[in-house]
């Protein structure tokens, strides 16, 4: 038996898990190898230390918890919740997730408010333009002036309001 193989089997040799022929081969190698003797001595010491530790009973709820987690893994929603819980256990991931949720909730509210303010800004222009189109049926209306009013309202709706007048 070469040295590398003997080193890999030292732990099994100590625990008496090898076949009789393997035991003989390891024994023969250890007898002639100082490094393996040292390694075997160290392993024996660790085994002795572990053997002196007291035996502990597992908590009673351990199995029920394991079973519950196994059952939740079958439900997609539960899996998502579990993923989220896992994410929240990491502060950076939790912060990013909170930011995304905040943006998703706040964006429509902010847009609604902006639309409302923009509507107030252009509302009267839209009213004048719509009325001007409807007023075309008036036989006394001046077409050229309708064109001017509609043109000005169009510019305001396009965001480029013209300031009429020649001063007070």
């Amino acid at each position, binding site marked *: 038996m070469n040295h590398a193989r003997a080193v890999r089997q030292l732990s099994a040799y100590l625990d008496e898990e090898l076949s009789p022929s393997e035991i003989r081969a390891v024994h023969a190698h250890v007898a002639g190898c100082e490094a393996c003797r040292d390694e075997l001595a160290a392993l024996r010491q660790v085994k002795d230390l572990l053997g002196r530790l007291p035996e502990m009973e597992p908590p009673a709820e351990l199995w029920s918890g394991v079973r519950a987690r196994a059952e939740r893994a079958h439900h997609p929603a539960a899996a998502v919740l579990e993923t989220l819980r896992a994410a929240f256990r990491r502060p950076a991931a939790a912060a990013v997730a909170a930011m995304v949720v905040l943006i998703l909730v706040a964006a429509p509210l902010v847009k609604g408010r902006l*639309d*409302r*303010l*923009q*509507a*107030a*800004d*252009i*509302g*009267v222009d*839209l*009213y*004048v*333009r*719509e*009325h*001007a*189109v*409807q*007023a*075309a*049926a*008036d*036989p*006394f*209306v*001046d*077409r*050229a*002036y*309708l*064109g*001017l*009013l*509609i*043109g000005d309202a*169009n*510019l305001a*709706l*396009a965001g*480029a309001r*013209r*300031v*009429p*007048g*020649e*001063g*007070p």
Partner: protein
Amino acid sequence: MIAKLAKARQGRRRGVIAWAVVCALIPAVLVGTVDARSAPRPVPSAADILRTMLAAPARIDYEGTKVISTVRGARAETVTILEAYKRLGRLRLEFLSPESVSGRLIVDDGLSAWQYEPSLHLVVRGPSFVQGTARPERAGEIMRRYRVEVLGREAVIGRETVVLGLAPGETGSNRRLWVDEATGVVLRTEERDPQGEIVYVSYFSRISYSLNLPPALFRFRQPAGAKVLSFYVSGEAVTSVDELRRRAGTKIAIPARLLRYTFRDGRVAQHGAFASASATYTDGVSVVTVFQTPTSRMAFPNVGETVTTREGPARYLDVGYFRVLVWQRAGTNFALVGNVPQAVLLAAADELAVSR
């Protein structure tokens, strides 16, 4: 032979007498003609001149320079425009001054109106606003609803016009129209407020009538690279109040009558996220439009000056030819727009409040 000579002499004498009679009659006829020319021609009736005016859009092409002066609150503005019109309902407007509008071009082909703003290199396309059909039969309706009178005859830019005075009821604006007697084209318009102050003047400083303006003048050619926006904000018109309510999707006030105006049609105007229900009322001639927009969709527009309606404070804006009244009540922004004085808008607002 003697008898023949006597007959010849008698014939010559008759010829001389005939010539004498003719010579005597010519001055008399000439004098009569001169008298007929100098005698004042009868001024056409208001109904006749209205019929001529209402038939003009289907009969007359013209091209001229128009000057429009308006008072918008405390500001006055004079706009000069090259205006060309072709039957039936095609219009070309080239704005010359003031500088803020100079270069603007509007071409209306009867289906769509194209506006080009050279300073922005921008084209805006929207619905046509030109009515090109002849409606002389409406003269009777106008005569019934308006006080129309012929104020006389005047020459405007060398053409004979008949001056018409129009007063829509007891509360409307007073208008005067100088109508070209031969063509029916309105060469000058004046509008006065209830105090008698002129608030709107429009007149041609020159005009040429042509029987056939080239169609190419009324076709819009889009400038290369210009940005194009389509502003067809008017929704499809409905003539049923219930259908308009259904389309608006919110509770809106639509009385069948508003002062002397009756409900004509309505629509939901939409521009981006902004939507407003509009109801148009007419007295058979002019129109007033009521807009209703939920306050959740539109903040209150702080425009113009503060006035008071029966329901509380409102804002009043004079845009020259049209006036706008805006107020808020029960979660709705109301707006009234029309070519009517402020007092009429306030009265209409009060009536709308009662109808809710």
